[in-house]
């Protein structure tokens, strides 16, 4: 007898494929169809059985040294959060450097949240989710002024971008409401949910800065072409 567990991932994918999500039978059928062998479900790289729910304000920290740059997190984010194959809309993005390093970056949920501070009061498009600690972007309120983008690029991780039409900010991670899809999808398990008693601000840096530091530690004998 195989036990059937329901995770948010099944729920969201169920919705994506047009199944009536939330009805256990439909979700279970979907899962069965997706897995050639139900007993292998626990060995899936998506680790559906290790779902971690955020119960206290938190952020996601990346173990850059372990990241392989496969961009499975990036695709997962676009599919689950944006229902799109457009990775520009992903809230977690992989960048490539030479000597070979892959730096994944996403919102660090800085305690002082300069992006929220600079959001024009009339817009108030950015706010803090008091339960998960994530910084939420209300797209309908965003006026596209780019103030948040500039301050994040200047002082923090530079994760905020403009939408393709240039009208809305994007790139802020809402932690999937408390059960982040990327954390479960990472085959290297290099994404960790960290309670915000560590301030994510201290880890926030642009991919280039992280790559330069990491390069000195990983390729510690220097670049030697």
């Amino acid at each position, binding site marked *: 007898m195989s036990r059937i567990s329901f995770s948010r991932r099944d729920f969201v994918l169920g919705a994506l494929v047009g199944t009536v999500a939330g009805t256990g039978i439909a979700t279970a059928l979907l899962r069965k169809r*997706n897995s050639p062998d139900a007993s292998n479900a626990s060995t899936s790289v998506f680790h559906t059985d290790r779902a971690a729910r955020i119960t206290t304000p938190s952020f996601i920290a990346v173990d850059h040294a372990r990241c392989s740059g*496969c961009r499975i997190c990036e695709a997962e984010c676009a*599919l689950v959060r944006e229902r799109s194959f457009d990775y520009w809309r992903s809230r977690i993005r992989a960048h490539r450097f030479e000597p*070979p390093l892959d730096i994944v970056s996403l919102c660090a949920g800085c305690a002082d949240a300069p992006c929220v501070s600079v959001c024009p009061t009339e817009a108030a498009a950015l706010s803090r989710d008091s339960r998960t600690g994530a910084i939420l972007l209300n797209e309908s309120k965003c006026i596209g002024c780019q103030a948040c983008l500039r301050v994040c690029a200047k002082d923090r991780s530079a994760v905020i971008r403009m939408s393709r039409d240039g009208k809305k900010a994007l790139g802020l991670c809402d932690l999937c409401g408390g059960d982040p899809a990327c954390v479960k999808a990472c085959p290297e398990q290099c994404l960790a949910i960290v309670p915000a008693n560590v301030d994510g601000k201290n880890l926030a840096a642009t991919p280039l800065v992280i790559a330069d530091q990491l390069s000195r530690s990983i*390729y*510690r004998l220097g670049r030697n072409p």
Partner: protein
Amino acid sequence: MAHGYSGKILEIDLAARRHSLSDTDMKAAEQYLGGRGLGIKTLWDRLPAAGIDALSPANPLMFWPGPLSGLPLAGPSRVAVVTKAANTSPAEPNLPHASTLTWSSIGGHFGPTLKQAGYDGLIINGRADRPVILIIDEDQVSLRNAGDLWGQLTSVALARLSRELGPDFRILTIGPSGENGVRFAGITGDVKRTTARGGAGAVMGAKNLKAIAVRGSRPVPLHNADGLIALRGNITSLLAAWNNYAHWRRWGATPLLLSADKAGMLTTKNYREGSWAAVDKLGLPTAEREFWLRHTACAFCPLKCVKIGQVTTGSWRGAIAEGPGYSAGAMLGSNCGVTDFGGLMKLISRADDLGLDPIATGNVLGFVMDLYEQGILRTTDLDGLSPTWGDVPVLLQLLDKIAFRQGCGEFLAQGVKKAAALIGSAAVPFAMHVKGQELAGWNVPASHDFALVYGTANRGGSHQDGASIQEQHRRTFLDALCVCRFVYGAIGTAPYQRAVSLATGWNCDDSSMLLIGERIWNLEKIFNAREGFRRVDDKLPARFNEISFRNGPKAGATFSAAKQESLLDSYYDGRGWDKKTSLPTAEKLTSLGLDKLVK
């Protein structure tokens, strides 16, 4: 509406410094898919006659993703580079520049990103009047002067371009060997791998194009996106259930050095042996314990088989390199008689930096050391160098001479076939190639399958093409989708047939897969036949008929001339090709819809 395709091909005219868009021929796409398939169809359409010089502006250099590129599936992470080969030639050429086509592919993120920049293909025509780089940022396409990037090593060019353009860009670049027209120069990409076979780097260099950078994330319309998302979960589960999943993620292709040695298939000292006493010094366990620092993956693949490390001890301390993957490890390791790990990694690192095909390079170096041992090449022929087996410092000097075409590097840069002809008839038997393409890292006497693989591969002595007709068709189909051989080895073709059906709306099954593969294979054959390649060009070097392994588990293994002939006879029979000429019969071409292409 076309599904799975953007419908647009980006064309670059380097001479006029202009770009334009052309429409993807969707009828051809249904017959050839993309990648290697649509590439050869386009090459045939663009080159109306035989004998065009591969290094002339008339030869298009093309980059083809496929209909699955950019989808978040493990497998279709590659891009096919298709052009007329710079290094091949028929045994009896009627035209001075007769050569095969070549397709060569590279993993990483370039192919998926090119597709998501909005293009089903990238065709580069002409030649720039000075060195340039091509930057594709979705609709914004620009050429800029390469400046002092020209002449730089590949790692330096990648680092500088990535810093200048931003780390969202995925980059391919040539090294000094491509700039200098070395016939076996490749194009180097972002996961320290190379589009190695066929000299595409020399073609790119002849166009004065140093590098291509691309950024993009626009999805193409899909027939059934929900179905593809479900298939994604399926492919992930299938991969995780593969019995080699854990060790492949941990070790990549490196253990193949040990298994090929055990099977007597490791190329050793210019192919004279099938095993190598020092094989345990070249890859595992040293690679993992002392060398590897990180694992790198191609797009959307959990296998992460690219292993990157830095040599920590000895003369080559500090060298950063990839692998050894199997091919580079065998060709620059055992085939060169190398006995130390650091030396092998330094050779791989330097070959990568110079932009050389590591397979052909190891073959050329083995050839030089063999000739030196036989007394056919002397120190005076080699600018004072004495290349004995495994002498890494001398091999490194030879690499640079080849890449910069200095001294003896001038004739070695032509590849073993042409170099042997220049050295003299005594050298010819030691040139291990088919159709002028240097053979790869799998030896023949203990496994005659590779006689057929090397012999009948349409780009010349390549190890990638399959040992049976049906396997050749399966692999050709996958190359048209830019799917990786390793993921295919793990989960087969069925998921990708399904993916094609879901992405495009066409019904793709076993029979359509094999038909598409056979059509592409035969069109490639016609291309080569027009250039003058015949049955004699499908034969291995006669030296294989004289080699009998003296050492190792397969001591005594041989490959006879009679076996060579019988292999080809039954192969041509099975293909519906004429046994005497090797040309496809009219019936065969008609059945594949190719008859109208041939007069």
